[in-house]
């Protein structure tokens, strides 16, 4: 693996060297162009001043022409600035959440995420890296996943440290798009399922991820994905199909360090987009499957098979999305799903309801959750969210309660979040 990594670093260095050098020249040329255009603007301003001092006859037309010219020059200047800035696209998002409920962790402010995305396009190549700054305390979703939890010398857990956080690399991939039918993405990337691909707080309606999500398909993969799509026009719309196939490291804690076996995981995804007509604006279906290994402590690795369906539907102001998945490992079956109808009240307001469920003998959890909430999005970059939720434990045979352990009880909660994209 080390050799492969060094080989890829060498390839990246060779591929990246020339464009970087060329880019410096481009920037220098563009800067010179900006300086030149600034001189032109200054000259035009002087001409306007001179014309304003002249007698009124014919001045109005000339002034209008000059103002048009000024506007065009100004736009050209902005375009060049944009071209320079777009050499590397820098975006990010900020998500701050508060929740209060009747669970074992009753209330917390969560500096959930501060994400920074860096992207670059070079012809048919795309590069994207995402750094996510997480404040881990009061964040069971992160610590439970095993991403950050570690035991310290004094026997406490890192969860105990208030204010401690971490920087995680969520995406770091390079993509080559040969054409619409064939593209290759290599590196650390999100799993192809709809929620994982669109899990960013700006793009989701709820403040919380579905409870089943981390227990079925892995969140991310480090490997190679081959992907493509094709479409056939149908009226003003199109019938589209797409595919993804990936081979990756197995998915267990610290997978890049503890992938002790050469048998890699693999997965596939098929997508269908049906033609939209009239009020129906979107009708997508997808099927996913995953074959891999999970770490089971000293016992080594166990096979894990997961498959699932999903759909996204949009008609007029009504939106609907749903995902369902079933996984099997060590002869235990776990299932989960969510159903989320939503209604766009107007451009700024959207309301939703989500029903979700998880049944997993592996982590001894069976739960159903109802969420209902509203989003205020005054700008596409800002989302203010509020929601109420109710969590209900389910009675299942596979659940074992330890002696002295309290049985789970239903509880209600409220959550608020402010999200900014920049």
């Amino acid at each position, binding site marked *: 693996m080390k050799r492969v990594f060094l080989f890829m670093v060498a390839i990246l260095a060779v591929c990246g060297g020339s464009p970087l050098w060329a880019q410096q020249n481009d920037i220098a040329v563009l800067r010179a162009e900006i300086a030149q255009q600034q001189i032109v603007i200054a000259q035009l301003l002087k001409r306007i001043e001179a014309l304003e001092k002249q007698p009124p006859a014919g001045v109005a037309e000339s002034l209008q022409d000059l103002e*048009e*010219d000024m*506007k*065009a020059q*100004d*736009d*050209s200047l902005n*375009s060049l600035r*944009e*071209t320079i800035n*777009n050499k590397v*696209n820098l*975006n990010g*998002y900020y998500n701050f959440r508060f929740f209060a409920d009747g669970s074992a962790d009753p209330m917390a402010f969560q500096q959930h995420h501060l994400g920074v*995305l*860096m*992207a*670059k*396009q070079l*012809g*048919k190549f*795309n*590069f*994207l890296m995402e750094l996510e700054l997480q404040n881990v305390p009061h964040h069971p979703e992160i610590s439970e996943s095993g991403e950050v939890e570690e035991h310290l010398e004094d026997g406490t857990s890192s969860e105990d440290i208030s204010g401690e956080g971490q920087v995680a690399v969520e995406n770091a991939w390079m993509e080559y*798009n040969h*054409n*619409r039918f064939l593209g290759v993405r290599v590196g650390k990337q999100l799993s192809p399922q709809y929620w994982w*691909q*669109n899990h*960013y707080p*700006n*793009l989701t309606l709820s403040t919380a991820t579905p409870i089943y999500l981390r227990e079925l398909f892995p969140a991310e993969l480090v490997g190679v994905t081959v992907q493509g799509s094709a*479409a056939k*026009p149908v009226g*003003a719309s*199109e019938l589209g199909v797409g595919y993804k196939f990936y081979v990756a490291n197995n998915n267990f804690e610290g997978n890049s360090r503890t992938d002790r076996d050469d048998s890699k995981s693999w997965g596939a995804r098929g997508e269908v987009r049906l033609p*939209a007509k009239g009020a129906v*604006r979107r009708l997508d279906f997808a099927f996913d499957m995953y074959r891999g290994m999970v770490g089971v402590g000293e016992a080594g690795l166990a096979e894990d098979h997961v498959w699932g369906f999903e759909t996204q539907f949009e008609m007029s102001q009504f939106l609907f999305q749903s995902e369902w998945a079933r996984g099997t490992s060590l002869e235990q079956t776990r299932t989960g799903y969510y159903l989320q109808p939503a209604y766009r009240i107007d*451009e700024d307001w959207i309301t939703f309801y989500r029903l979700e469920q998880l049944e997993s003998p592996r982590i001894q959890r069976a739960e159903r959750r109802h969420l209902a909430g509203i989003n205020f999005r005054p700008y*596409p*970059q800002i989302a203010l969210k509020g929601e109420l939720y109710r969590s209900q434990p389910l009675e299942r045979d596979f659940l074992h309660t330890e002696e002295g352990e309290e049985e789970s009880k239903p509880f209600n909660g409220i959550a608020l979040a402010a999200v900014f*994209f920049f």
Partner: protein
Amino acid sequence: MWTGHASTQIIPFVVIVNNANPVQSLSVLELRRIFTKQSRMWPHGEPVVPVDWDSTHYLRSVFSKDVLDRTVREMQEYWVQQSMTQGLTPPSTQRSARAVLRFVASVPGAISYVPPSEVDETVRVVPVK
């Protein structure tokens, strides 16, 4: 010529490309793919550079509705999503026909749209089927 309808009046616009671009015609779906950056290369190998109008301009909302089948606001949301998931940025924007023409005339892979009355010999009009 592609014709857009905005409330009570008919506002036409034409699609323009650089004079060196050999493309003969485009379909609405091809235009949609270009302006959503799903098509990134011309058949002759040049990178596609779509140029949009400022989001407050009437032509932008007509084009957005008629060609992209989305409102300007919905397209802004689309670009937030694309920025986060694919690292793609929206097309650059211009505020006047003169600036659009200047941009398209000087960038080989550029494509945009302007009112027919603004077209001059520095760019080429591409029919939309």
